[in-house]
């Protein structure tokens, strides 16, 4: 056979190299590990740490969180509640087909208010800022668990306490006008006046682009009663854990709903809690999926 031109020979070698290495690293390697994963002890984990009921039906995975809400998205009070989730698919939150996070930044504090005629649900251009979402969740949880839901930078109506301040020289000078950006008219603003200027409610469609965004800290405690993990969405949207603090906050409600002793519920929480591995890796966490299954086993819902 005549010698091939060099550039063709090089590409032919490259093609054969890709194919040979595909067989080794793309077929043999995963299948070999798959074979090892069939060893008893590893096999259940390789299958996805599935949880079964007494009839052998899959009821979830101990690694994948679930949302304990009814068809309308309202919390089912007899269950420990999971963290907020951004993995919202056809089956509601905690959908493993759409894992993911909010990706909203630390200064995402101004809502895109909805057209008053359409409302939050009807106007697809409307969106709540991360700050307002945090405030809203905090007050809702505070009300559910009977504790103070207030947080810094939140109004007591549960939206982000953010003013748009207009200055006479653009970014400096006298304050000329102040708008509470997350409170649509005709709400009365959380602050009556700022720097001696009366605070207005936010008019839908008005252009506040020239205002300086000014979050107002307020006098809520810096360490709120509703824990951090309860008001933030996880990275995966599938976090199976909550913090021990959030679990503790829910114990009285669960005990009342289930007709159980708080101490008995606390014992179940302790069983579902893992500490730091070797004392320093990660954070203590309560597995909500396992906890709620144990709860159903010990105190079935009537």
């Amino acid at each position, binding site marked *: 056979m005549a010698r091939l031109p060099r550039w063709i020979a090089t590409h032919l070698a490259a093609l054969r190299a890709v194919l040979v290495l595909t067989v080794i690293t793309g077929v043999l390697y995963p299948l070999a590990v798959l074979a090892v994963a069939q060893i008893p002890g590893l096999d259940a984990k390789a299958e996805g740490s599935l949880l079964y009921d007494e009839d052998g039906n899959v009821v979830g995975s101990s690694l994948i969180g679930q949302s304990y809400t009814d068809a309308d998205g309202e919390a089912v009070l007899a269950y420990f509640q999971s963290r907020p989730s951004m993995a919202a698919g056809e089956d509601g939150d905690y959908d493993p087909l759409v894992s993911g996070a909010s990706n909203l*930044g*630390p200064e995402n504090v101004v809502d895109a208010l909805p057209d008053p005629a359409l409302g939050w649900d009807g106007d697809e251009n409307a969106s709540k800022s991360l700050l307002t979402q945090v405030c809203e969740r905090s007050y809702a949880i505070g009300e559910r668990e009977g504790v103070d839901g207030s947080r810094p930078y939140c109004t007591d109506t549960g939206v982000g306490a953010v003013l748009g301040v207009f200055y006479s020289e653009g970014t400096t000078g006298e304050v000329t006008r102040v708008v509470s950006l997350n409170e649509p008219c005709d709400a009365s603003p959380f602050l009556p006046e700022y720097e001696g200027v009366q605070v207005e409610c936010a008019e839908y469609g008005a252009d506040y682009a020239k205002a300086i965004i000014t979050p107002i800290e307020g006098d809520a405690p810096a360490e709120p009663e509703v824990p951090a993990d309860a008001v933030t969405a996880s990275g995966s949207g599938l976090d199976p854990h909550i913090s021990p603090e959030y679990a503790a906050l829910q114990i009285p409600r669960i005990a009342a709903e289930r007709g159980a002793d708080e101490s008995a519920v606390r014992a179940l929480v302790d069983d579902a809690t893992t500490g730091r591995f070797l004392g320093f890796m990660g954070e203590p966490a309560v597995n909500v999926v396992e906890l709620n299954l144990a709860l159903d086993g010990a105190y079935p819902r009537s």
Partner: protein
Amino acid sequence: MSETTAGVVFIAAMIAALAATYRPLGDHIFRVVTRERHNRVERGLYKAMGVRPDAEQRWTGYARSVLAFSALSLVLLYLLQRLQGSLPLGNGFGGVEPGLAWNTAVSFTTNTNWQAYSGESTMGIVVQAAGLSVQNFVSAAVGIAVAVALVRGFARKATDKLGNFWVDLTRVTLWVLLPIASVAAVALVAGGVVQNLADFTTAQTATGGDQTLTGGLIATQEAIKNLGTNGGGPFNANASHPFENPTSWTNFILVYLILCIPFSMPRVFGRMAGDDRQGYAIAAVMGVIAIVSTGLVVGFESFANGTVPQAVAAAMEGKEVRFGVADSGVFAAATTLTSTGSVNSFHDSFTSFGGGVLMLNMMLGEVAPGGVGAGLYGLLVLAVITVFIAGLMVGRTPEYLRKKIGAREIKLASLYFLVTPALLLIGLAASLAVPANLESMQDSGPHGLSEMVYAFASASNNNGSAFAGFGANTPWFNTVLGLCMLFGRLLPIVLVLALAGSLAKQRPVPATAGTFPTHKPLFVGMVVGVTIVLVALTFLPVLALGPLADGLQ
């Protein structure tokens, strides 16, 4: 123990683990790439590939082979995705649409692994294992091969031969990546990472709803995606997904996998150059930058500066309870200091300064310790620039490892350094000039600019992580970011190989009393200084408009 203390112990344990494997792993890689004889397995594979293992290549031949291999990888990965609908084990997904298939093929063959796709809803088992995972192996092996070729340029004398690319590629894949990935994959399964051929399992949840659980060959992909500093995962949520990273100790393993080869490459360099102290000096440069940067990220995240973090009382948005804030910060630092880009928490929601340090890590050129291979050759180029500057100060012809750094060498090194800033800043400026592109910013104000800066830093440096709120899936950004990935990978490789070729030709000059010692703390300090000064001068303006303005509001 407070969370911050636990985080500090986590970092200390990681340093101990990396220090313990520095010599054995580095020595192992050294033996693999320098062994004279080919064993029977290797000879069989060379035969199947149709290459002659004993024919050493000049830098041009080596570069041609790298480019041909990357081109064929790209084409085959593109076709595999497009043909998914006609393949078995596709989870019922059809062919991947052309724009996305192109973007994914480019990003995986360039070791970037920018994840434009959502794995659980587009990529079936065959594409994940035989396409994406394969590129996770071989693009990593290419990086190590190129680094080894550059070191040969320093170590050899009066030759134009740099080794054989096909031999380096095969051996690194077979004897370095494959064994470590296999052991790690089994360990990950023990932690709960799934490894099966199931597509979906439907669960009846406690409140009567349905939940669709995903399956797949996840553990094997997870191991190599981190070991090869690739980062592209099987799921959209990447390593924050409990099926990829289920426990606090699998998290430790993943961070270790990301860092172990890049931090051992200086050992390979030292052994091949015949002076272990040169390796320690390079490792020290990497270590100093990495420790400072990791400390800053963990510090900023723990301090939780910013409106929303203060309202929450912790920077918990986008982070998982089982990892906590500190270990999420360590992972984020490791993934941006290398070219990995896998994430266990979402960087867009990090505090402004914490996210700013992550950007800075990538802008440093990912040299501390950098991607597998890519980190070493990047840092050696900076070392060349450093001896050049040191030579200017004393008025001597600069030398590094007894090779003269002449006009040709310094031109190649400077061009290498300029590639990524040019791609990043020109791409960013051109994008900002088109008004429609501003709609891709999810957040308004400085954070919106940060999102776009992060996207270009990530693509140009082949990182692959993102401020994921950024809407990069537009024709403009798919094209421009794709070009940044392609040029950001291949141009530096060609320049490095050219540098290697020109160094290998030289005869070493004798060391004299006036030779600047490149294994002492003074040199380590100078390389750190040069790295930081060069990057600060290049990127400070854009950082001031993005993360700094965001955090100082």
